[in-house]
């Protein structure tokens, strides 16, 4: 997917006029945000779990090579085949090759952000494969030719009416009116597709080193059908998804659903260890795991390491006032919200995405709710430093900052200049106490009055009243 993040401001401005989006975002705020607060309050050890999760992740990241090797040994011993992919192109080629060898024509897919990251669907379709998304949200997005706007709910931006229209067009028949009928219709259609599929592609929420298992989490059970029914199962995920033990996986499972949607546990959680064995009735004959680096090992060795703790719960966006105003599509690439503002520059380059880490008030709510306590504002600030070094900010902002810094470094001059400026502004604004328009401040006055200064500065008053010494 070609990044459109440079146009963040314009895309966000347009989104602000979209009443459908506004309703959807309100649903998120009143729904998932409130549900997460309740879930966190209902679990006395919630904060302790968060601390434990941070410790586990940090430990794994410090020893990632060892855990990946251990995982590979167990996974292979259980009969799985592991593939290491350095970048998106390699991962796509590996997956295509497996599909070709399986003589696949139809591929079912459960939700995978890593698949979005590598642009898998478009690639496989261009190679003549039929790809069917089985997560309801992803299925809707696919029908609409759209892209996800949220990590957990890819179609949160859509109304029921729009979905009914899409379904009627794709499946025939009159548009259904209620949600239950729509879900039933999707189930009906997808059931057939599961049976037709030659290959099933899933993501993996966790990889367990001690058992070589992969863990998938869904609310629809579609990952189970995607991985269990076709002959060949391909799981695709990033190398950072390792946890050492089953017990530790549960720390994350307890946090994930609560942080994402306020559920105590996701509806379906599956631990999968190897393909179908002799004595088993169900399961794929082949099980592949594509482990993607795509810049993750670089992140591991640098100042962004903490970002690799992310478990893709979406809490940061559910609580982000900027995301809730702008919607996911404004971000212009796969990952959105605060976590997207940190990740996107890694994948597409800061020169193609610098507006994202700048589009934050640093209000800190994302960090406050992130189950693994990722310091998202700090990481966004690191990207701002990188953008500043490369001179990527818009000219007006750079000139303003340079001018301000010139005075701020010269306190005596600053005193003099501000005294004169405030005296003048104060006199001009005295009658109304505010300005409706000011040169150089149109970004403010377009929607706000600008409060007039009282006149003499505090430091000048203090000096006059209490002497120069202070």
């Amino acid at each position, binding site marked *: 997917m070609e990044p459109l993040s440079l146009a963040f*401001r314009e895309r966000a401005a347009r989104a602000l006029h979209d009443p459908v989006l506004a309703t959807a975002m309100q649903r998120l705020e009143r729904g998932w945000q409130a549900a997460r607060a309740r879930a966190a309050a209902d679990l006395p050890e919630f904060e302790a779990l968060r601390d434990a999760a941070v410790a586990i992740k940090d430990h794994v990241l410090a020893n990632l090579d060892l855990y990946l090797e251990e995982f590979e040994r167990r996974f292979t011993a259980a009969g799985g085949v592991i593939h290491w992919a350095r970048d998106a192109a390699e991962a796509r080629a590996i997956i295509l090759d497996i599909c070709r060898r399986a003589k696949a024509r139809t591929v079912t897919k459960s939700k995978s952000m890593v698949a979005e990251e590598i642009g898998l669907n478009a690639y496989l379709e261009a190679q003549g494969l039929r790809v069917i998304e089985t997560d309801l949200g992803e299925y809707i997005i696919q029908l609409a030719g759209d892209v996800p706007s949220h990590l957990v709910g890819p179609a949160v931006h859509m109304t029921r009416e729009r979905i009914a229209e899409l379904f009627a067009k794709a499946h025939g028949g009159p548009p259904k009116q209620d949600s239950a009928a729509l879900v039933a219709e999707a189930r009906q259609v997808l059931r057939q597709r599961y049976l037709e599929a030659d290959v099933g592609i899933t993501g993996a929420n966790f990889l367990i080193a001690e058992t070589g298992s992969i863990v998938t989490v869904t609310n629809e059970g579609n990952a189970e059908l995607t991985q269990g029914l076709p002959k060949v199962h391909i799981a695709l995920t990033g190398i950072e998804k390792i946890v050492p033990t089953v017990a530790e996986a549960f720390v994350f499972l307890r946090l994930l659903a609560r942080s994402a949607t306020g559920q105590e546990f996701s509806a379906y959680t599956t631990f999968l260890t190897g393909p179908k064995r002799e004595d088993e009735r169900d399961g794929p004959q082949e099980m592949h795991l594509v482990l993607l680096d795509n810049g993750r090992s670089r992140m591991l060795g640098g100042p962004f390491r903490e970002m690799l703790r992310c478990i893709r719960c979406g809490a940061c966006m559910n609580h982000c006032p900027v995301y809730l105003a702008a919607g996911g599509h404004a971000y212009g690439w796969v990952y959105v919200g605060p976590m997207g503002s940190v990740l996107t520059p890694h994948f597409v380059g800061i020169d193609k995405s610098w507006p994202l880490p*700048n589009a934050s008030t640093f209000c800190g709510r994302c960090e406050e709710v992130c189950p693994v306590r990722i310091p998202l504002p700090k990481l966004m600030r690191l990207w701002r430093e990188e953008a500043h070094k490369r001179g990527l900010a818009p000219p007006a902002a750079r000139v303003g900052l340079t001018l301000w810094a010139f005075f701020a470094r010269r306190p005596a001059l600053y005193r003099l200049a501000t005294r004169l400026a405030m005296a003048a502004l104060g006199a001009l604004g005295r009658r109304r106490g505010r300005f409706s328009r000011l040169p150089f401040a149109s970004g403010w006055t377009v929607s706000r009055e600008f409060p007039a200064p009282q006149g003499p500065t505090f430091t000048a008053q203090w000096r006059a009243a209490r002497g120069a010494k202070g």
Partner: protein
Amino acid sequence: MADSPRVALFVTCLVDLFRPSVGWAAVALLEAAGCRVEVPEPQVCCGQPAFNSGDRRTTEDLARQLIPALEPFDYVVAPSGSCAGMLRRHFPELFEGDPAWSARARAVAAKSFELVSFLVEVRGMRVPPGRFSGRVTYHDSCSGLRELGIKDQPRRLLRAMSGLELIEMEGCEVCCGFGGTFCVKYPEISTKMVDDKAARAEASGAELLLAGDLGCLMNIAGRLARRGSNMQVRHVAEVLAGRLDAPPIAQSRG
């Protein structure tokens, strides 16, 4: 020191330039709490505009300019959660791994406080000197709330004022959309955020909105005024000190 500490008032650039009455209110409160107040020079700005724009060099230079001025004092107090957060949290971060400056930055950070939390936690203030009657609502500014844990302290002092009724508005912890340079870099999103804030403030039924950060206050007052609201906006220190002679933010005398 215990009975009469020497306090450096870091007045913050916005208060210095736009609303000196907040500085005087802070002086009154600190003196009521038994402090000897001084305003050391040079103090210009804590450096946040540069810090948040990714200009690390200017930030460090400004910090090196400010730290020596603050070092001689028992405490440094700022009428702003955001600037106090910069001193407390980010100054040490800036000089991590710099042997000459990191200890100095940490020492200044350890004695730097936001005004209201300083009054309550360090000086044990229970009842503020000011008088006020009316219905007020309190906006939790982000840095104060999340970097410094300021939530209860201002409310405790406000509730101790007889005649003052504190009404919580919906979403008092949600950002007002100021965000320093954010409000002019992304005016559309910022407007949406401050408009939501203004609407919720009006819906609370309070006559006066208070907060501890002038940036947020100017933003909210500016939006309320543009909406044609007659809700008043002030810094919490003005009410706590009972210094209400200056007209509310973005309003004129009379």
